[in-house]
């Protein structure tokens, strides 16, 4: 992994972690990117705690140290606990997570590890717990989290580890 950051952030800092990151170097997408990131946490279809589990499963898989260290306050307020976060390690199928949470992680894992291996059986499992709007929302969230974390890793400057910290959704 690149230890040194490969780019510098924008010269003018705003206090918004997305706008002040390297993403600020592509102003053509920045406003939409920031709005998408904010909107994922106010989706009417997926609760923040479930969205956060999917985000953290992705973060572990991509090994984005920044992404792994963060907990969104809206997710914690919605019931996300560190016990649940511990349960999303490999082997989560045998954890105490609920059937809904396990179905969401099954969807995340097929996307992350073998998207061409998705099956009608997986869809049937998802259909037991999610309607069309909820599944589409999980899909958009997962895709956005995956793109962001792969972006962060690709740009280098990732520390070996970081302490867990709680943050608010950037406005």
């Amino acid at each position, binding site marked *: 992994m690149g230890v040194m950051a490969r780019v510098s952030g924008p010269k003018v800092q705003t206090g918004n972690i997305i706008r002040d990151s390297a993403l600020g170097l592509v102003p053509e997408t920045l406003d939409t990117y920031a709005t998408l990131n904010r909107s994922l946490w106010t989706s009417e279809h997926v609760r923040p705690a479930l969205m956060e589990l999917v985000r953290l499963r992705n973060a572990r898989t991509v090994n984005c140290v920044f992404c792994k260290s963060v907990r969104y306050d809206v997710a914690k307020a919605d019931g996300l606990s560190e016990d649940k976060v511990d349960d999303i390690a490999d082997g989560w199928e045998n954890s105490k997570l609920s059937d809904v949470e396990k179905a969401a992680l099954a969807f995340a894992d097929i996307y992350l590890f073998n998207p061409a291996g998705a099956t009608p059986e997986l869809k049937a499992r998802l259909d037991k717990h999610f309607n069309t709007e909820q599944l589409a929302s999980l899909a958009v969230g997962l895709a956005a989290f995956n793109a962001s974390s792969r972006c962060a890793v*690709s740009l280098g400057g990732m520390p070996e580890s970081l302490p867990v910290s709680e943050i608010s959704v950037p406005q």
Partner: protein
Amino acid sequence: MSTVTSFTIDAKLAPAGKIAGLYADIAAQLWDQPHIAAQSIELCRLALAVQHRAKAEQAERHPAAKGLSQAKIDAVLNENWRKEGGFSEAERALLDFTEYYFMDPQSIPDEVAAKVVGLHGENGLVCLVEALGFIDSRIRLSLVFSNFPD
């Protein structure tokens, strides 16, 4: 089941409402920016499609990349772009980066990233990883939804 590609995935995601629209908007904006030419983004999209073994995706051509030579398209699709002489150094830097990106972003060597920065600038590197992230995620979702019953 119906075949889905990154060109048609938005219909599957539309039930998500606003966030689906924003996700589609960013993907579209990445084809219309001043940092990396759309023809080069298209080469990277095709390279990702090849790595994913996504046949339907490989058959698509993005309208923003008009003018891209068939010889370059074929070289990427046949995975022999490294041996073909028609690519610029700037295109080769992007394709090289893309192949590492697909395998694992952690595997991208500093010199490969530095080459992109040297030829496309820091803005170009950030634009590239944004574009790869959105294209890759759309291909992944397309493959998943292609295997789900309608």
